[in-house]
């Protein structure tokens, strides 16, 4: 079921002339905005008050917030303040001023904020998307400009790093168009990509790259960007019409896909691990399902598990000083050497590739490999030495175990991800749900509360918190749990999934009957 967070449209005219159903608003840095009945501001948080409960939002998550409700009457706390109030003054923004002036200032700020919200709302629709340009790319996007700017910088740095390493160059006047969507739903719907596709580079004219912003797992956004852009960069690197073998195309895309990006220093670092892929790979190897090296080297197209195998081979060859230069030389020959025998690429008859047998011979010659099977064994041993190290890797490992009905092992991996302060709210949501299933509701509450700090307005997180409370079965916990579930429904009143375990009493509360 697609979750659709209700984000109501509020126009300035409506705000002024009619009472809005919800008067206050919050705008998250990731571009989402919500109308809420009332917000309350504290030093570090904004609390969104609903009929059935309140949600505290750390201000660092917010771009802005807006309260239609007046600042209210000020209660003097001492004689000095009393004297000022009697003169018709109120405190505002660190100063004392006449009440009318304060109210005018608030009204002006509110107007500006509403206009900013409206502008953002318009640009969230693809028809009114933002547009931008950098030296090598043009951009169309619906993510907030502040987020887009960061990624635009990344694209240029990536181009520089790659072109320095490999000597690739963009033809003059042929910037690559990039379409950057605010979320996966928009990406899949507007780009026409099917389910399961996270991004694509269109390598026939007109060239184009499409991907989306995954607010809950920014690492995924980076991974897809690095991966798909790599296909473009190798497209520039290769002689026109020449295709590299799939293990290099996808293996190198995955190699670069794991790169890290420091937005402050604007630096990218290579050679990191594709931990999600590694987990699947090691599992396959444990099950005796090893990839034959020769078969991999001559495949025109590969499946998802072979992406993982290819990545490890590229990682091994790139990260070893003894082989890195030779590997680059090898790739260069496949991409550009006109003397190597070629044939039509099976994937698309408009392209050619070096004949597989010739490519394998060259591989062995380049690396001095007399016995391919022995080299294959070295490769397997290399993979066995790689280890999952990051919170994200442990999250992926846990999800893998859940898919294979291994809840106990999944819990171990989730614990590790949480210990490493995973920034992915899904870690906490999935783990919390698992703990409820394992009859550990108190622990589930702790985990889900952590998740709520990362993603406060996620109705499913709130719902699961409610379920975890109810699972404790004492009267006060059940009451509290139901409150949370009612609150979850308020966040998305049309999502039937949120009321699937409502009893008649809860239903009566939301119908008023």
């Amino acid at each position, binding site marked *: 079921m697609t979750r659709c967070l209700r984000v109501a449209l509020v126009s300035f005219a409506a705000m002024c002339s009619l009472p809005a159903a919800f008067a206050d608003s919050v705008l998250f840095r990731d571009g989402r905005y919500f109308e809420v009945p009332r917000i309350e501001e504290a030093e570090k948080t904004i609390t969104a008050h609903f009929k059935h409960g309140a949600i505290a939002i750390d201000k660092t998550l917010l771009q802005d917030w807006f309260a239609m409700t007046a600042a209210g009457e000020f209660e003097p706390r001492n004689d000095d303040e009393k004297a000022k109030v009697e003169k018709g003054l109120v405190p505002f923004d660190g100063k004392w001023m006449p009440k009318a002036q304060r109210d005018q200032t608030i009204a002006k700020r509110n107007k500006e904020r509403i206009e900013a919200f409206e502008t953002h709302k318009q640009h969230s629709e693809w028809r009114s998307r933002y547009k931008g340009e950098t030296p090598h790319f043009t951009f169309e996007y619906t993510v907030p400009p502040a987020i887009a700017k960061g990624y635009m910088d990344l694209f240029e740095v990536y181009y520089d790093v790659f072109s320095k390493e490999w000597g690739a160059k963009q033809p003059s006047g042929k910037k690559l168009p990039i379409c950057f969507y605010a979320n996966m739903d928009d990406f899949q719907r507007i780009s026409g990509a099917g389910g399961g596709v996270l991004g694509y580079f*269109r390598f026939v004219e007109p060239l184009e790259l499409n991907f989306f912003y995954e607010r809950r797992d920014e690492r995924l956004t980076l991974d897809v960007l690095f991966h798909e852009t790599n296909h473009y960069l190798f497209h520039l690197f290769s002689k026109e019409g020449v295709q590299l073998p799939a293990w290099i195309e996808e293996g190198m895309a995955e190699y670069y896909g794991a790169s890290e990006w420091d937005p402050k220093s604007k630096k990218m670092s290579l050679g990191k691990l594709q931990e999600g892929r590694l987990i699947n790979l090691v599992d396959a190897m444990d099950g005796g399902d090893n990839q034959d090296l020769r078969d991999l080297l001559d495949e025109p197209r590969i499946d998802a598990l072979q992406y993982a195998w290819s990545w490890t081979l590229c990682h091994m060859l790139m990260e070893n000083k003894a082989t890195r230069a030779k590997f680059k030389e090898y790739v260069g020959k496949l991409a550009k050497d006109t003397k190597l025998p070629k044939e039509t690429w099976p994937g698309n008859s408009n392209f050619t590739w070096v004949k597989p047998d010739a490519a394998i011979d060259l591989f062995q010659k380049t690396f001095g490999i007399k016995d391919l099977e022995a080299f294959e064994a070295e490769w397997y041993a290399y993979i066995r030495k790689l280890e999952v190290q990051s919170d994200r890797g442990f999250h992926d490992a846990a999800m893998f175990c859940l898919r294979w*009905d291994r809840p106990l092992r999944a819990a171990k991996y989730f614990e590790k991800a949480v210990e490493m302060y995973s920034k992915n709210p899904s870690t906490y949501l999935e783990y919390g749900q698992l703990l409820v299933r394992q009859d550990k509701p108190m622990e589930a509450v702790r985990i889900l509360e952590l998740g709520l700090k990362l993603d406060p307005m996620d109705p499913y997180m709130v719902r699961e918190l409610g379920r975890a409370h109810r699972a404790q079965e004492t009267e006060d916990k059940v009451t509290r749990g139901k409150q949370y579930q009612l609150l979850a429904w308020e966040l998305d009143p049309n999502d039937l999934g949120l009321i699937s375990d409502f009893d008649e009493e809860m239903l009566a509360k939301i119908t008023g009957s």
Partner: protein
Amino acid sequence: MRNHLRNRWIAATCVAVVGLTGSLRAQDAFTNEAVGYKVRPPDGYKKAPGGFSSFGFSFGADRYLLDTFENTRGIATKSGWDYKPRMYTLWFPARSAVEIKKAELEAEKAAKESAKEGDGPAVSFLVGGRVIQSFEEYAKDRITGFYFGDEKKQTIGEFPATLRPMIFEKLQNEPQRWLACSLNVPGGEFTILFSAPESHADKLRADFMNAFKSFKIVRDGGLLIPPLTEKIDVEKTPEIDRDTMSTDQIKQILAAEREKAFKKALDSMEKGWKSFETEHFLVLYETEQKYAKQAAQHAEDLRAWLETKFAGIGDGFEQSQILKVYKYDSSNSSNISITFRTGSGPTVQVIHFRQPVSKGHEAEFSNLNTSVMSNWFSQKNEELYQRMPRWLGSGLDGFIDDAEKTGGKLRFEADEWERDRMIDGFNAQKKWEKDKVGEPPMKELRDLLKMASKELWQGDSWTYTSAQCASVCRYLVEGPGSRGKYAAVLRNYITHLYTLVDEVEKRLKAEEEERKKLSAAQDSMSDEEKLAAEDEAYKKKRKDALDNVEKEILDKAYALTFGDWTDADWRAFHNSWEQYAAGRTK
């Protein structure tokens, strides 16, 4: 597992239906009496089967889509497609999630009460899942490849309306611009949607607007808002337990179910339909009787042939079958080849649409053949049928689908598709013999017969392999492979399969029992013991994954049937088949 796709240059499928010539007379208004609306489609639009024709649309049951019309005049596009604009009507009654939830609770309550009282009508809950309140939501949920253009609000007829262009740009052979008009009517939102190529969107706009303006509600009380629940009869299917029941008991139950199912089918037969019974089928038909009898006799003949050729494949009990023979209807063009087996349990429906066929292209009863075959194998031995090695399963499918009766006898000549694939395959093979690059297009039989599905269908030569599997099965079942020195090959192979599948199923069942016991014993285990037990269970489960079991059965059946064959034996076997197959490509 993530799946990054590099190349998404997908040839977008605009509507590519070869057009029928429609008359260009002024269009009559269309009335949907049930829902209660009337609308006049533009000239040339005829009623068409439901469902969107643009790529990326999610098919399946759609409770919001009412009627579909297609412009029989095609628009020639730059990319060579014949684009046929369509008009759709959709209705979104205003309902809240709460309203639906209440109905669901009522339905549950009623079901519990009727269960307490015994047999009787129960209440089923019709609506579940996401509630869609508007066309905007619906389009974002169900249609891909587009974004909304600038919307315009205006009054159309007596109703406030919103006009929304839908722009399809990416991954398209032909860019499109559709236009949706959503009318705010009492009780909800009614939408009329037109598809069009971008090149003609402006020219056709006037036609679209006229259609929008022609919308009227003709039902007293407004458009029908379908109920959320309906009363249905509870059908209790009796359980059949082969471990505790005797053969006679089981046959008795199935006979009673057959009688009940046949009576129900006859009682609910559509107006204008007729019926008769044969030995194994209740036949309901709307075609002329002669054709229906021909179809039924063909089904019986094929059954009899299967009983002879594959005797001993299993001792499963026969289910009653209902064969429905539909007339050919050009408006059912998108369903023209559908023959499917529906329902599980004791009664199975086989549906056949009479279709115009060109001689040699496809057998008249092609889809009826595969349904009858599939039902028969499933009834005789469901496990074996599910676990049949793919070269054999797919091969039998491809070979039996060609069954036709000539001269009073069933014959299995290759259809045009198979012949063409075999010719191309042999030609590609000759080319491959010269440079030996890549995989051979036509497989050596000694390799083909041990290939799992993954290997069979990979690469670009999978169509040749598919045809080759059908050809090999024809050779083994009806050709020289069914006689003389190879007569026992298929029989032995299937006998071994029977035993192997039985062993595998018993093993999987035992492992499942062990998992249950372990699960029950978990309370007395330490956390470490539980974790170790879970890891161990996973290793076994992974070993028994579909792929692995498939390979296990394939390898063992191969070893048992061909274990002592020499290179010379294989060469002779392959040559014999190849000679037979080559003779059938002329």
